[in-house]
């Protein structure tokens, strides 16, 4: 190992030859930490990529925010869909719910029945979504996209993304199912509503 000045002399080059060393790290988001670690080891100036490229950095942040916002919107819309389906089911089944209650089933049993239905919808929807999503992503992965070193659209496969998406889906369907289920559990078999007194 020789100093950079000696190296330049050996190759008979001037001061503009070899002015910087670029370091490629595994996770680009760790650049700031790696830079500060390196700066303790050397007298040269060490700079993370973000410092010289703040526009790129903020574009990155913005893109992540948009991605999360779009996914959340889709989930909430899907949640309302399930909420509507369950609400309709409850309205259609008022008579049956009243019958069950007259037979001695209580509010908790009724909640259980409707929650089971919405969670099953959630599970089926979630699994279908994962499979379809994976297929679509692998198609997207093959769309030609020639910029710099890229030849196709860049895709990152992370198992954690799939798990998080599935869990969120289940949580949303659970909530969307719970509200109509609670409404169903309050249906009165007799009383002034008298669902069972007349022929419906």
């Amino acid at each position, binding site marked *: 190992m020789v100093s950079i000045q000696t190296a330049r002399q050996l190759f008979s080059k001037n001061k503009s030859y070899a002015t910087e060393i670029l370091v490629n790290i595994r996770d680009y988001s760790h650049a700031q930490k790696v830079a500060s670690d390196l700066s303790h080891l050397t007298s040269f100036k060490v700079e993370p990529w973000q410092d010289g490229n703040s526009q790129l950095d903020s574009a990155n942040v913005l893109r992540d925010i948009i991605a999360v916002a779009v996914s959340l919107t889709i989930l909430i819309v899907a949640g309302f869909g399930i909420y509507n389906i369950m609400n309709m089911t409850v309205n259609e089944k008022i*008579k*049956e719910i009243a*019958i*069950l*209650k*007259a*037979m*001695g*089933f*209580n*509010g*908790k*049993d009724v909640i259980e029945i409707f929650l089971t239905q919405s969670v099953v919808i959630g599970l089926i929807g979630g699994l279908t979504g994962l499979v379809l999503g994976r297929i679509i992503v692998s198609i997207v992965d093959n769309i030609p996209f020639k910029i710099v070193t890229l030849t196709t659209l860049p895709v990152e496969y992370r198992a954690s993304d799939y798990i998080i998406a599935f869990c969120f889906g289940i949580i949303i369907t659970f909530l969307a199912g719970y509200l109509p289920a609670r409404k169903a559990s309050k249906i*009165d*078999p*007799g*009383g*002034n509503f*008298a669902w*069972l*007194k*007349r*022929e419906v």
Partner: protein
Amino acid sequence: MTALSVKQINKYFSEPVNFHVLKDISFDVARGEFVAIIGKSGSGKSTLLYLLSTMDTEYQGDISINGTRVTGLKQNQLAKFRNEHIGFVFQFHFLLPEFSVLDNVMLPALKLKKKGKEEIEHEAMELLSILGLNGQEHKKASRISGGQQQRVAIARALINGPAIIMGDEPTGNLDSKNTKIVFDIFRRLAKERGQTIIAVTHDDEFRDQL
């Protein structure tokens, strides 16, 4: 021993107009008695039966069934009480249309959980056969005739061996032959098992059978 004790029942409907349906009703029914409540259509028979069966809790007065005061109990306690002690036959059959005949009959017993599924199924089959429904067990409840549906509803009311069986015009949709079958079953239950039967009707045929 009194199976049912009713004290000073008053019931009002506020919709569509304020209407005093039941006025100061008091009576006792002994265990094993077979009681028929007879009255014109619109006289409040169904309304009374819904109070007695604990499904309607909005009334003034006091109702005790088999020594338990049911007035003032919470909805969930009442549901449990109904499941175990009261068999109800509605004016219209009110079966679950998408379930099979057998499942409809088994349902209250599956909820009670006192017996295993096989035993319940066996008892349900037996009840259905007593009521002349052999061969209908696995049909959907919506695919049998009105008279058959009414008898399925009776089998369902009997499955948990309730202390009291209440019927709101239980033979209203039946021909005279089936009315007689149901009537004989009720009479036998009252006599042999000491079950109390309270049936509401507007038709004199039923009374004549008594």
